[in-house]
């Protein structure tokens, strides 16, 4: 990079072929300082590229991998005989595990046919959102339960599970897989709120004190990109569920089969 430059014409002794720099060795302080500053600038740019792009891909792949492993565990541990048809409409509701324990997989066909992320209990940044991907708000309902199943994930970098949350179309399906089966929700709308507006997590979002009747899925993430100024809240409502023994819903069957 800095191999040209240097001596130029000041080389009276003898013409050297590789005269770049020539005999001129006085290292100027300004020159070295300049090169150090350029190096520092390149380092910062590399870090940014790593942060928003390369590491995002690396961590996203690692989170996918965790979801696949979880899926394999369920497959291995599944009861061979189908249970007496529980039937849609009466979903089995699991019990929330301990903090940072994985219990579910999020499938969003709109995000891609191979897209999936593991869901763990808790919304700690370091232990859940960074390392696992999607976190379940403690105290909110479990998938399929009457009330509000509320989850959070990163919007940008760190594997950015909800990077494309704003791309959802009304009517898109969102699936939560657990060892009991797959819960199908339909995306309804998005709200943009202040970070302290916790009432989106209530059993009936933004309706304090109202007893829940519906089964709701709430997804929270940062908004806008690269900012924490607001939160984007995506709401979905429960449609039906597919018991594990009866196989995955058609819309995500290939994902579950091929990716896990």
């Amino acid at each position, binding site marked *: *990079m*800095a*191999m040209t*430059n*240097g001596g130029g014409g000041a080389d009276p002794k003898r013409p050297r072929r*590789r005269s*770049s*720099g020539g005999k001129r*060795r006085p*290292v100027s302080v300004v*020159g*070295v300082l300049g*090169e*150090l500053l350029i190096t520092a600038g390149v*380092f910062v740019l*590399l*870090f940014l590229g*790593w*942060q928003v792009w*390369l*590491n995002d891909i690396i961590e996203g792949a690692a989170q996918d991998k965790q979801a696949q492993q979880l899926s394999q565990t369920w497959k291995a541990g599944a009861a061979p005989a189908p249970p007496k048809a529980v039937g849609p409409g009466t979903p089995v509701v699991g019990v929330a595990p301990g903090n940072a324990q994985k219990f579910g997989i999020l499938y969003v066909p709109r995000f891609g046919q191979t897209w999936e992320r593991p869901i763990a209990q808790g*919304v700690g*940044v*370091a232990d859940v*959102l*960074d390392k696992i991907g999607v*976190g379940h*708000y403690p105290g909110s309902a479990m998938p399929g339960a009457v009330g509000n199943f509320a989850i*959070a*994930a*990163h*919007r940008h*970098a*760190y594997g950015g599970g*909800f990077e494309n949350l704003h791309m959802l179309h009304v009517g898109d399906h969102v699936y939560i897989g657990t060892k009991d089966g797959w819960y199908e929700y339909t995306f309804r709308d998005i709200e943009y*709120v202040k*970070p*302290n*507006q*916790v009432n*989106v*997590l209530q059993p009936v979002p933004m309706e304090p004190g109202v007893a829940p009747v519906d089964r709701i899925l709430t997804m*929270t*993430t*940062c908004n806008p990109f690269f900012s*924490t100024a607001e*939160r984007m*809240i995506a709401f979905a409502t429960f449609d039906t569920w597919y018991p594990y023994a009866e196989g995955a819903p058609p819309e995500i069957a290939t994902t579950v089969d091929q990716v896990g």
Partner: protein
Amino acid sequence: MYGALWRVLPGPWWVRAIILLIAVAAILAVCVFWIFPWIQPYVSPPPPETVSN
């Protein structure tokens, strides 16, 4: 600095270029696998993503 480095390296230009390429690759690897993850929490802490009081 870099000019001096180029002069110190042995061999014809393409040998120096190969040495430098390997060195750059090694430095990048060290950055990506150790230095960047280490400084990330200090310069760019992950945002909370959650709603909370």
